[in-house]
C-alpha cells in the first residue's frame, strides 16, 4: 500500500492520496453515527493530509452527511485547523491573557522577524508555520509557546534563535524536539 507516486520527503510515511482517502473513509464510517463525531474526524483528517484541503472538507461533508457550510464553520472557528498547507513544524505563540501580559506579543514579533513571515504563513522552505494560540494551560510559566507537541515556557525573544535551531536540521523522519 505504499505510494506509487514519488513520495514526499516530509511525510513520515508516504501514502498515495487514494490511500489517504480510503483511511479517511474508514474513519468516517466509525464516527458517522456518533454525535460530536465531526471534530475528531477533522483532527484525524488534518493528521492524514497535514491540513484540510477543500476536497477533503467536501468529502467529510458528504461522508458525515453534515452541511458543507457547517463543516467549514467548525474548521474556521478553531485555530488548530488549517485549510492551507503547513510547514513541517508548527510554531504556536500563546496570546492568552497571562502570556500576553508577560510579553507574548514581543515573543511573537521576534518569531515573525526571525522567520520572516506573518501569522498564518509558512516559510519558503516549508519548514515552519507561525500561528497564535489561546492558552495551553501553562499560564504559571508564561509566556509559553508550542512547537509541534512541545511546550516551551518563560520564552524570551532573545532565546528564539536557539529554540528554532533544533528544528532546522535538513528534514529527516525524526525532526522533532525532545
Amino acid at each position, binding site marked *: 500500500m505504499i505510494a506509487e507516486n514519488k513520495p514526499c520527503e516530509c511525510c513520515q510515511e508516504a501514502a498515495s492520496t487514494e490511500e489517504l482517502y480510503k483511511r479517511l473513509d474508514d474513519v468516517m464510517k466509525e464516527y458517522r453515527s456518533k454525535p460530536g463525531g465531526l471534530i475528531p474526524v477533522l483532527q484525524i483528517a488534518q493528521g492524514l493530509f497535514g491540513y484540510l484541503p*477543500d476536497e477533503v*472538507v*467536501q468529502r467529510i*461533508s458528504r461522508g458525515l452527511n453534515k*452541511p*458543507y*457550510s*457547517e*463543516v*467549514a*464553520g467548525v474548521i*474556521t*472557528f*478553531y*485555530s488548530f485547523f488549517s*485549510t492551507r498547507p503547513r510547514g513541517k513544524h508548527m510554531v504556536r505563540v500563546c496570546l492568552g491573557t497571562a502570556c500576553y501580559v508577560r510579553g507574548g506579543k514581543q515573543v511573537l514579533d521576534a518569531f515573525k522577524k526571525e522567520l520572516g513571515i506573518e501569522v498564518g504563513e509558512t516559510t519558503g522552505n516549508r519548514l515552519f508555520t507561525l500561528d497564535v494560540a489561546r492558552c495551553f494551560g501553562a499560564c504559571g510559566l508564561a509566556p509559553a509557546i508550542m512547537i509541534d507537541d512541545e511546550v516551551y515556557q518563560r520564552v524570551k525573544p532573545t532565546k528564539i534563535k536557539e529554540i528554532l535551531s533544533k528544528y532546522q536540521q535538513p528534514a529527516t523522519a525524526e525532526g522533532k524536539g525532545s
Partner: protein
Amino acid sequence: MPKLSINNMTVEVPDGATVLEAARKAGVNIPTLCYMENLQAIGACRVCLVEIEGSRDLAASCVMPATEGMKVQTNSPRVRKARRTVVELLLSEHDGDCQTCNRNDNCELQAVARELGIREIRYPGERSRRTTDSSTPALERNTAKCILCRRCVTVCSEVQGVSALFPQNRGFKTVVGPAFCKDLNSIACVQCGQCAAVCPVGAITEKDQIDQVWAALDDPTKTVVVQTAPAIRAALGECFGYPAGTLVTGKMISALRQIGFKAVFDTNFTADLTILEEGNELLTRLKTALVDKQDAHLPMFTSCSPGWIKFAEYFYPGILPNISTCKSPQQMMGAVIKTYYAQKLGKKPEEMFVVSIMPCTAKKFEAQRSEMGRDGVPDVDVVLTTRELGRMIEQAGIDFRSLADGQMDSPLGESSGAADIFANTGGVMEAALRTAYEVVTGRPLPFENLHVTPVAGLEGVKHAEIKIENTVPDWKFLEGATLKVAVAHGLINARKVIEQVQTGQADYHFIEVMTCPGGCIGGGGQPRSTTNDVRKARMAAIYREDEGKQFRKSHDNPAIRKIYEDFLVKPLGEKSHHLLHTHYHERKPF
C-alpha cells in the same frame, strides 16, 4: 399553567411558555432581533433582556421559561440601560449607511434603536469587515451590515434543508455566510430568498432591479409589458399600510398602468395554461404506466417553483425525470408574450420587454436560465419582487391607497379561480385536480366548493386520495383507480416526501412542491415580516379571489380555449413543446 406578573400585571400562560410570550400575552412589547416566532429562540442578540425579581442577572426573555409566581419588569431603569448598551454596541460595529440601504425605513435595527431612544453611539471602534456578494442574480449580501442574529442560518437549514449559510470564523471576525466565505453562486444555494425575508437588517436582500425597469420604460424602441403573479395581489397592500390579507388586485393594476407599462397581464393566465399542459402530462404518464406498462417516471412532481427545481438539481438529480417538463407560469407567460402577443402587435420578440412581478427571488434566477428563451431572446427580461414593486410605486409618486380599481388587459389577463390558488400551498394540486378529474370523469371534482381541503393549510406534508369512478370512454383504463397525491412546502418537507418515495414508503402519483412555507404567498420576495398569521391571512384572501371568479377551472377559461384554437393547437403539441416546456440538469453541490 403558571401565573406570573409582568410589570405588576398578572398573566397566566401555558406550560413551557417563555417570559417573552407571557409579556406579549399581557400586551407588553419587548423588542427582539434574533427571535423568530416558532423558529428561533436562542438569546443571542440580548435585546429582549428583562429584570426578574430575586435574580442577580438580567435574563433574555425569549429563552427564559415563565414560572409560577415570577415577577418580571420589562421597563425598569436597569433594563432600559442594558438594552440601550446592547443596541449601541451592535450599532458601533454596524455599517450604518441607512440612507442608501435597501432596508431604509424598514429595518428592525433602526426600529429598535428608535424605540430605545438612542441618540448617540458612545462606542466608536472597529467596524465589521465589508465584503459584498452580488454573485447571484437573485440576492445580495453585505457582511458589514450583518448583526449575527443567525435567523438566515436557521431558516436555510431548518425550513429549507439547504444549509447554505453558517457562521464562519470566530469572535469579532465572525461572518455569516457560505462555507469559507465563498460567494453564494459557488455553493448550493437555491436562491429562494427566505434568508432575505427574515433578515432584520440589510445584510441579505433581493437584488434590486428597479432601475433596469425604468430604463426599459424610457427606451422608445421597447414595448414594455408586465405580468403579475397570483400571490402579489394578496400581499402588495402591506407595503402601503393595509393589513395582511387585503386584496389589492385593482389598485395594483392601476399603479402598473400609471408607471407606464403598455399592457398589464396576469401570470394567472399561464397558470391556467400550466394546468392544461401539466394535467395532460400527468394523464399521459399514467397512461404510459398503466396501459403501455412502461416506466413513466411516476410520481410526477410539479415544476412551478424555481427554488425547488434548483434544489432537486443539486440534491436529488435522480428525480429530475419525474419533474413535469412544464415551464413555470412566469416563463410560459414570457414565451407567449414574445410570440403570440408580439405577433398580434406586429412586433419582433426582441422589441418586447417583459417585466414580471413575483413574490420570489428565485424567479430572478429562473428568468436568466439559458433554457428560458429562444435565439438569445429571454422569455422574461426583468423580475421584480413584491417589495421592489412597492418601492417602485413609491418612486413613481403614486398614492396607492387612493387609486381606483383597474382591469387586466386582454387576452393574457383573463384567468380562472384555479389560477389564483397557485399562490397557496396545495393550490397547484387543487387546480390540477379540478381539471384532471373532470377530463377523466366528465364530472366536477367532488369536494365542497371545489376545495381539496386535505391538501390545504400550513401542515408541512399533506396528502389525499381520490377514487376515480365512472370514467368517460377515453380514460376507461383509470376506472376504479385511486389517485394518490401529496403536497409539500418548505424544502425540508420536500426532502421528507422524496425520501418516502425513494424508500418505497409511499406510492404517490402526483406531488406538488413549493419552495417557501405557505407557498408563494410566503415567498422570499414578499413584504416583511411573514409570520404564520400573515400566511393564513394571505391564503384566505387568495381563496376569496378564487371564489369570486366567474370561472373556477382552468379549462373553462375562454382565453385559454382561444389560445389553443388560434396558436398552440393542443396541449403537449409541437408549439407547446417549443415554447412551454423545458428540461433540467444536474448541478454539483460543491
